[in-house]
């Protein structure tokens, strides 16, 4: 085994958490201000009641549910992808896992807000919690909405712990380092507490690795269940273009697709903003780009299958929704979605040059827009056309709903910028471990194993 793997190249990862970085602070400030739009709009809605939103008969689910499904989909970026890469022992995962897991945690937090916002009166949310009281209400466990609560709570708890567990040794590295450099500083105190007294003994490493493995195995089916259950919010209702047996896998594929998209964009920005090209290198983008391409194809396949079945069946209520989506008022949205979700990815990602950081980030941005549109078409597209023609209606989002959407994006940025200042965005110990494994494997295999090896 060669000597220590820690070196000057690690400084770029440690700097944002060990010193004040004006750029990150400004980032937090700007995104924090955008996040304030969410709370202002939500506060306005609470004071003036749900009527200030654009939802009305028959479109009772509007932007809030669209955003809910969108953010829960985004949350499939991290924990699921990270868990799959850990279980399959993909060596190139090491620089990716943490930035992906953080996306999951923050996206879930934001996604979980939307049912509360949609409720209009968030203070009655606890009625969904099974607590025996004299109010004479009890949650209906047969309802998919209850399954949602259970699944999202489980996934959020699992994702937070799955993010935090591998961070403990990194906090210990930072603690030991900062104790020498500035023992009295607030940051040192934070790292001391966050490290929980981690010492790095063989027993601790053994237990931690066993726990991470066990968590990875548990978290994969949970992640799949979460978006399947979200799809069942729709599929269990006998509504045109909702009541579909493939909605579960269709939503899971869409969720992972949008998750990979946000990961691509986040990694590109991190690489540029923090100068961590050595870690988030072309090889990582190339590998994730291939996964991205696979999901573009899968999503296109599911979308085709879903729409072909409806068109071929030619059932009156369903074809009304289908026609409005494909050739009617929502056609411009539908075809935009197809272009950004299928056409552009298939024009760029099959080629190695397209799987470079900039190419994948551009495709990722497009896919994010496209996947939001997909959720809008599913939610609003169907509700505009109930089974009785004379009850058809329209939906226009109000400024409150738009403000909450914009604010939620700000909130995601704010949480991410704050996280960047609290923990290394690339796992220090995992990268070091990767370097040690590469050293043990010898020079021949080193190139293949080292996460920092830049593709020519």
């Amino acid at each position: 085994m060669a000597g220590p793997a820690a070196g000057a190249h690690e400084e770029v990862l440690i700097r944002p958490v060990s010193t004040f970085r004006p750029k990150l602070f400004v980032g937090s400030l700007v995104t924090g201000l955008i996040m304030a739009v969410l709370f202002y709009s939500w506060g306005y809605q609470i004071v003036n009641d749900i009527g200030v939103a654009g939802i009305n008969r028959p479109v009772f689910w509007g932007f809030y549910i669209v955003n809910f499904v969108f953010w829960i989909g985004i949350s499939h970026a991290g924990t699921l992808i990270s868990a799959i890469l850990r279980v399959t022992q993909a060596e190139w995962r090491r620089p990716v896992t943490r930035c992906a897991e953080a996306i999951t945690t923050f996206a879930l937090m934001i996604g979980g807000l939307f049912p509360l916002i949609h409720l209009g009166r968030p203070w009655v949310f606890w009625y969904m919690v099974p607590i025996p009281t004299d109010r004479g209400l009890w949650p209906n466990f047969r309802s998919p909405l209850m399954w949602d609560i259970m699944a999202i709570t489980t996934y959020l708890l699992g994702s937070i712990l799955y993010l935090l567990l591998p961070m403990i040794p990194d906090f210990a590295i930072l603690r030991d380092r900062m104790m020498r450099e500035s023992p009295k500083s607030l940051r040192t105190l934070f790292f001391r507490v966050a490290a929980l007294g981690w010492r790095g003994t063989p027993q601790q490493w053994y237990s931690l690795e066993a726990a991470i493995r066990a968590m990875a195995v548990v978290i994969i089916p949970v992640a799949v269940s979460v978006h399947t259950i979200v799809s069942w919010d729709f599929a269990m209702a006998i509504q045109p273009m909702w009541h579909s047996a493939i909605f579960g896998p269709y939503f899971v594929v869409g969720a992972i697709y949008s998750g990979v998209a946000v990961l691509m964009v986040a990694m590109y920005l991190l690489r540029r903003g923090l100068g961590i090209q050595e870690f988030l290198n072309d090889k990582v983008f190339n590998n994730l780009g291939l996964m991205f391409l696979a999901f573009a194809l899968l999503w296109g396949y599911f979308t085709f299958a879903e729409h072909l079945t409806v068109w071929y069946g030619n059932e009156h209520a369903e074809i009304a929704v289908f026609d409005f989506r494909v050739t009617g008022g929502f056609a411009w949205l539908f075809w935009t979605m197809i272009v950004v979700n299928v056409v552009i990815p298939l024009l760029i990602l099959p080629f190695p040059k397209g799987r470079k950081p900039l190419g994948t980030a551009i495709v990722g941005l497009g896919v994010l827009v496209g996947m939001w549109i997909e959720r809008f078409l599913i939610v609003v597209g169907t509700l505009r056309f109930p089974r009785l023609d004379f009850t058809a209606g329209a939906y226009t989002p109000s400024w409150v709903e738009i403000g909450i959407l914009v604010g939620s994006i700000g909130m995601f940025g704010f949480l991410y910028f704050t996280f960047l200042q609290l923990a290394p965005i690339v796992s220090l110990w995992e990268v070091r471990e990767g370097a040690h494994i590469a050293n043990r494997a010898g020079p021949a295999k080193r190139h293949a194993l080292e996460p920092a090896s830049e593709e020519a």
Partner: protein
Amino acid sequence: MTDGRLHAAFATSAEVRVALNRLGQDGVPPDAVEIRSSVPLEHDIVPVGGRIKSRLPWTSVVGGLVGGTAFFMLVKLTSEAYPLPTGGMPIVPMPTTGVITFEGLAIGAVIATVATMLYECGLPSLFKKAGPLDHHIASDHILVTVTCDEGASSAWTAKALETARD
């Protein structure tokens, strides 16, 4: 040497392996030796006579079973206690109850996994004092600490560790 403890920092696990063998040959008991590193080491790097073990993933399985059973019972017992009109359909249908049971299984497994890991690692332990060479761990060195009586065994312990570093 501080507080009856001898600290040594090594650059590679090969050096640590040699040092541990020497300590073992000199009769230092495994519980007197502590190895610390910033990365997981090969699993054979333990004090001679010492061993590492974990109850994971079995506790995860048990936690999952407990969680799944608890959630199943929650749904079954409470649905029967507060029966809602279901139009002749079952009060506790297996497919829908299965969804919640699965989530309970997962949440039980997650909590049991983390609790076991914290217990086995002895965490949190916030008030343990830092050693004089702890900063070497941050720079990816491996720290070996030997607890010994002042004067009595420190000489041979120091010798063993120094020999390994030659």
